């Protein structure tokens, strides 16, 4: 759990982050969104003390981050930046081994961990461990960047626009991978982005920042239905807020008992996707069917539309 208490950062007269407090629950993903200059990156960088706060403090699992030297703190926190920042002179395996080496793990443990992570990120160790970063594609470099950040089993992972440099298709895949990884390792993730779609897709909670202030920090649905500030509604988008709301609920969650002869949809599909499918087929209802063929219930257009209202 990360507790941010009244964090403020000033450079001379300019206040970049203004009295921000928030709590990130263990095993959850919090996303900080804002326009450029909103102070979101500075807030993130104060958590691992790449930026020292002017006032306020950060606790990780109840422990003040200033209770140990900054470089030792950072070895316990994963950090991923835009453009990956891989070391061009070191192989993929050496890059991933960076923090374990700093921590003085023995070679056997490091090698086992590197192999495990390469497999988790679908990079065949035999062909990629000894490759240099420039020999990889953009998506692979980004995956190695995340693998490197996770190498020493950090409890907290900080990500600063990690998918910003990827093209849309690879970005969607990287976002799915992140969700899988987060579930698998139970990492607490704080991610900074300017992309609201990404925030809604990944965040258990979303913090909206503007001008250094935290405007609202809540579940995505609440940002849509009860925005605390006109700026929040502008960020979330007024025109398609109903569709965004539908995209936050899965078919499995919304399924009602009963049968349907409409098209089959997966329980993991969002209501937005189900509605789109129904419109396309001209059907009134869909069957929610598990991967193994079990029917979980049905979804009617009317039931879906009910979810799109605040």
């Amino acid at each position, binding site marked *: 759990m990360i507790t941010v208490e009244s964090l403020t950062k000033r450079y001379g007269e300019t206040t970049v982050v203004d009295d921000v407090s928030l709590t990130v629950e263990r095993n959850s993903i919090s996303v900080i969104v804002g326009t450029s200059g909103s102070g979101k990156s500075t807030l993130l960088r104060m958590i691992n003390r*790449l930026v020292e706060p002017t006032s306020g403090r950060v606790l990780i699992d109840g422990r003040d981050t200033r209770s140990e030297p900054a470089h030792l703190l950072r*070895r316990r926190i994963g*950090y991923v930046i835009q453009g990956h*920042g891989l070391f*061009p*002179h070191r192989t993929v395996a050496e890059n991933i081994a960076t*923090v374990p080496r700093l921590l003085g793990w023995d070679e056997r443990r490091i090698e086992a961990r590197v192999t495990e992570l390469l497999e988790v990120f679908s990079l065949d160790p035999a062909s990629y461990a000894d490759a240099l970063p*420039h020999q990889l594609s953009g998506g692979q470099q980004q995956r190695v960047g995340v693998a490197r950040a996770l190498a020493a089993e950090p409890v907290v992972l*900080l990500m600063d626009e990690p998918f910003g440099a990827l093209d849309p298709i690879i970005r969607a895949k990287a976002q799915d991978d992140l969700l899988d990884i987060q579930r698998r390792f139970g990492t607490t993730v704080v991610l900074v982005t300017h992309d609201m779609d990404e925030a809604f897709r990944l965040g258990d909670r979303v913090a909206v920042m503007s001008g250094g202030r935290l405007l609202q920090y809540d579940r995505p649905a609440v940002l849509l239905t009860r925005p605390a500030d006109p700026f929040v509604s502008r960020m979330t988008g007024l025109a398609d807020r109903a569709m965004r709301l539908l995209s936050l609920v899965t078919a499995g969650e919304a399924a009602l008992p009963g049968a349907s002869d409409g098209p089959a949809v997966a329980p993991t599909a969002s209501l937005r996707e189900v509605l789109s499918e129904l419109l396309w087929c001209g059907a009134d209802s869909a069957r929610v069917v598990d991967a193994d063929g079990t029917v979980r219930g049905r979804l009617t257009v009317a039931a879906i539309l009910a979810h799109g209202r605040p």
Partner: protein
Amino acid sequence: MSGARPGAARIDPLGVLLVAAGAAALLFLPFVVFKANRIVPGDPRTLAQVLPAWAALGCAAVLAAAALTALWVANARARLLLALAAVATLALAAAAAGDALTPPGDRIVRIAPGGAFWVLLVCLGLLATDATTRLRPGPGVRVLFLAASLAVAGLALAHGTFDHLSVMREYAVNAARFAREARQHLKLAFGSLAAAAVVGLPLGVLCHRAPKLRPGILATLNVIETIPAIALFGILMAPLAALAAAVPFAEQLGIRGIGAAPAVVALFLYSLLPIVANTVAGLKRVSRAAVEAAHGMGMTSWQVLTQVELILALPVILTGVRVVLVQNIGMVTVAALIGGGGLGAFVFQGIGQTAIDLVLLGAIPIVTLAFFAALVLDALVEVLEP
């Protein structure tokens, strides 16, 4: 001659230039100069005058083959091979001329390679360099080639092939001193480089980390760079002499107004700019994301510097070292003027005595040394470049 016919080679423009220069030199300049002693002006002799007919013909044949290749053969390997063969032929012809023109047991006459020899050597050298550039050999091959040619030249010298040529005559007289001055030359060049690296690297890192200091430091070093070497020696004489007088033991340590001390200090000062400027440029080139990630993962500032920044900046820093080394090897020559020693001693002594052979005894090793230092460091930079 139809350029469209496949396989028909076009005339090589560089070849035309080199062949014209070489042919003109052979026609109008002496191949060797015969001097009754080391300082009188000599009599010019052509190739045909100094070699037996069969040897002169053979030599001419090799030179003609090299000329034809330079003009019409595009294959870089053939061009290189013939250029090297012609250089070897030329060297052997000069050595043979020395042997033929020196009366048995005579130690007074001097047989010096003449204008034609030097012009041909330059032309063939350019031909070989051009061919090498076209071949694009890897750094390992280049160093190996360098070592091989050095070995061949060393063997020929040790065997006494060139002993009757004037430069080697000067060497025979000065052998012990030559070794001493060569050592001194290397000591001055590498010593000032080492000192400049020890001071320049941290200074470069400081400039990178504290951008406010950068303009001041670089401007100061730039001003030093513009002072002519002789003037800088002069400027340093007074303070170093004063230092020697004021500080006990300073003189015993070799600190004096003249001699090696001002030379080393001056070379050190000249060396700082390339090292500092290249360190700054190299560090600036390092990916900001990599440095940010390194800090973010918990490397200490020292670890970021030594494990990431300096390693990634190394090729650019070494380029600075190469500039300094070549510059120093040349500039140490001038140190001889203020009693600093080095191979320049032969050069200035030779100028004083109008004994051009003595000048060459100093100048040829200096040029060779600078050339080899440049090639070896170039190869090193290429190996390190990721």
